[in-house]
């Protein structure tokens, strides 16, 4: 027998302190900084994702390009999508988060910083994955669902 859970304190100190890595951040799609915009849009559509990471020749993260950049920088602008490199429209030097940083920190970064996506990166720059606002929302919802299913 177990003591049943009768409260659903999802957003408490324990939840907020969990590592972002526990959300199992999906592997990110990366493109080279010299890749043309059209090709990158193709990747976004093909993978049905909202964001790609932009890397240099050494594989280091140099930027991020998301749906927001499409709306704010690409659409209604006069870029030649077949020749302009993504480096001209990406958001350079994005904020990142480590796998062992807390959910609280991720929420803080997204809320205060206004980021919808956060690359998950090790201290030496190795890209581990990408976490989005949706991943956090899904995690909260799953936690609640798990509690509900126990009931």
């Amino acid at each position, binding site marked *: 027998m177990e003591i049943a*859970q*009768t409260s659903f304190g999802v957003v408490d*100190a324990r939840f907020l302190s969990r590592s972002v890595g526990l959300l*199992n951040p999906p592997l990110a799609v990366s493109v080279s900084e010299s890749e043309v915009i059209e090709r990158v849009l193709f990747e976004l559509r093909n993978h049905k994702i909202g964001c790609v990471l932009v890397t240099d020749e050494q594989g280091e993260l140099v930027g991020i390009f998301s749906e927001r950049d499409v709306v704010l920088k690409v659409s209604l602008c006069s870029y030649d999508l077949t020749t302009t490199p993504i480096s001209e429209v990406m958001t350079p030097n994005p904020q990142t988060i480590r796998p062992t940083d*807390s959910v609280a920190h991720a929420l803080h970064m997204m809320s205060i910083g206004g980021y919808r996506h956060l690359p998950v990166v090790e201290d030496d720059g190795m890209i581990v994955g990408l976490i989005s606002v949706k991943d956090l929302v899904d995690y909260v919802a799953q936690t609640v669902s798990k509690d509900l299913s*126990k009931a």
Partner: protein
Amino acid sequence: MSETTEKEELLLVGEKSFDSALVQVYTTPDKLKLYVSVHPTMPGSAIRTSVDHISMVIESVAVGSEPDRNVLENVVATLARGEDVEHRRVARGEPTTPGRDGRVVLLVQQFCAPGKQRQCSEVVDARFIKSFDNVEKGMTFARVMPPAPGKPGRDVFGKPIPPPMGKSAEFRHDDTIALGMEGGVEVLSSKLDGYLTETEKGYHIEHNLKIEGDVSYRTGDIDFIGNVEITGDVQRDFTVAAKESLGVTGNVAHGKLRCRRGNISVGGYVLGDSFTGFTVGEHTNEQMLQTLLVQKEAQVQCAGDFSASILDGASIEALGNVTIEKEARNSSLRTRGSIRGSSARVYGGDLYAVCGIEVLELGNSAGAATFVHACSDVESSAEYANLSDKINGYLSAEQMLEMQLGVLVKEPERLAKLSPTHRANVQKMLKKLQEIRVARAELEAKRTELLSTASRNSSFRVNVLGKAFSGVTILAGEQRFFVEEDINGPATIEHFPETGEFKVGSLRPLECGTDQAKPAKTAE
């Protein structure tokens, strides 16, 4: 043929004569540098040539090379002075960039001994310092990132040089960890609940957490999904929660203990904030009264047995038996089993038990008000316990769903304005809400029916091995027994539900009546 400059070995690529001079072309063994030597056939004689000509000669020997014209200008000038050109570097290739080695990337925080963990700037409550992440059975906690290819180079002949691949990650693990694949990447997952650490065998998931010293600001609250052992105390306002079992060697002073599945044992005392009574005066308003009457959450909650040396103002809830070694004063003890303490003095407070109480002394010579409550067999049954827990769970689920759905519960016409996908999801949730309400109503009806058939144990016994003092009250339903004069033990105060009588007689062992009345935890 190889030669060496002052710095490195050179290999002869070829040589060619022109304009009374001999051109020799060399490369380094890695073909990343191209050297040229030019010797006049007649030593000391000046040679008139041009950059284009000498470049053409070099390129005919080292096909594909692109000599640096600036360097060749200097070569031409040197030859014009009648000097030899010895091992001049005229071209350079591009070296490769080695690939990044593969390695294991941890997705969780590995265990860090309290006091040694780094201070997290994200901590919002200094009591909660994260020393580790709970890793559940089956959870992926690490990824084995593959090695990355490096950047190719180009030799002096223009040919590409493939980059060296990084090395694969090397790691070890023991049999608490399983390997798998996710998204094309090798991952490590846990075979049991615990925390991640490293031993001489490599990565390891540990099911037992031992805290050396106190649970305090040094450690923060503890919440672990295995067994917890604390060698010190649990200090004020800190909470220790364990899933399987919890042991505290020291004391628990205004701290909280939780154990969802197993037993809790405290070697020292448990000091709490329980109060036994209050006086209502003419200035006590309704709000104050409600505040005073609100049942506070128990300080200690465990699904199994509970044991401690001394309790003072503590509130204990256990599904199993409660054992006191020395003393329990002014405490609230609730159990679906029995309360025992063959050497213990129990006075003040409330004791709730199904299977009886056996202590050395009950009450004290000062006449401390001590209440013993006999609980029914239904309340001890697994069925009743499960029902109550389920009903509470359903109620909480219902409240949570109502909160999530918000206005859509009371105004279903708003559903038409949602997108089809959203509407479908909301309709599923509304259906779930309805199912939960129906299920809860059925369970409540069942519980009411059960309670209506409740009967006490065939007898309820309060055993005093030493003495029961005046001031002790034993309650069984509507019946009460006041100890008006001290009762010397060993003796049993026995209640018979059928007749409603209380009898004081010679010592009789505690019993739990029929199977139905056994402590809930054994009747799972």
